[in-house]
């Protein structure tokens, strides 16, 4: 019997610039999480950092493939956060789309896998897959520019996909 799923859990819409956004106290009752971000920086250039449970250690090995105006690039990286390769260089009116799938986020017998699609209209499209080394359930997800702030109007939508 079909079960309604893809449940909106929380939405953050910035009425003013913010250094970071975070979703906490995520219930463990879903199968996967999906974080859809439509965001821009106030100014400048910065990498975007997605983290789980506040973990800022080198626990996010990933591989990416990027197509941009300068060509095709890719490789392995192991960093202190999930990051679309390279930097975003969005002015406050140019928003990028970031769709992050966190699979089996509430299990405690697997390291967490994620899929990320990043689209920055002025520059590139990037796909990234990787894992978080933790086996704990993901109880919080944060999105932070490595420098600078999220611009007013940036939105972050967290969904739970029913098990």
């Amino acid at each position: 019997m079909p079960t309604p799923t893809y449940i909106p859990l929380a939405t953050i819409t910035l009425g003013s610039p913010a250094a970071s956004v975070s979703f906490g106290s995520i219930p463990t009752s879903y199968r996967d999480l999906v974080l859809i971000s439509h965001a821009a920086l106030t100014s400048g250039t910065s990498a975007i950092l997605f983290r789980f449970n506040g973990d800022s250690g080198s626990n996010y090995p990933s591989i990416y493939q990027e197509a941009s105006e300068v060509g095709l690039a890719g490789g392995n990286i192991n960093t202190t956060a999930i990051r679309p390769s390279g930097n975003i260089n969005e002015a406050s009116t140019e928003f990028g789309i970031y769709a992050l799938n966190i699979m089996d986020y509430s299990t405690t017998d697997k390291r967490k896998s994620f899929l990320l699609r990043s689209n920055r209209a002025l520059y590139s499209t990037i796909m990234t897959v990787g894992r978080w080394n933790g086996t704990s359930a993901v109880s919080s997800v944060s999105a932070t520019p490595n420098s600078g702030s999220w611009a007013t109007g940036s939105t972050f939508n967290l969904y739970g996909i029913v098990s």
Partner: protein
Amino acid sequence: MLIPFGTLAASGGVVPDYELIATTVLGSAQNSITFSDLGTYASTYKHLQIRVVARSSRAAWVDNIAMRLNSDSGTNYNWHRMWAEGGNPRYVENGTNRNEMRMVGISGSNIGNSLFTPAITDIIDSFSTSKNTTIRTFGGHAEITGTSEISFGGAGWRNTSSISSITIFVESGNNFVSGSRFSIYGIKG
């Protein structure tokens, strides 16, 4: 990847457009899984999405998995994909007149740390009887010390039949390990 947001109903609730049909989590190793009786949903859903988190028993870094529709094992499939492996960002491969649609390479037993590979497959217009069925898959895994792979590809089944069953299997003949998960969702349109 489809991103269905649903529709806010007048009451303030969310009308479900994306519904779980079934989930299988393997309690023991096996080569394949099948979602059957999907024709039951032909009048309800327009598209299907399959979400996989899986690992192979093969003694290798990676093992390819594939899909067949309606138990068709004839040479009725074409597929192509692009992928990055390790530090090399530019591999492409394709299959013509094949017996299956390759989806993605999943982690094998040479990769430690309980690493399972995620993948999402979208099947657009799954129940149409005027189009050949097409799919797209995005997936991969990352390992610090072993081979990592990221893959994005498309495939087609040269048959206009409505989908009645979907089989996902390990091409090498090895098994999905216990704990591998396969979920299928129906999407209204």
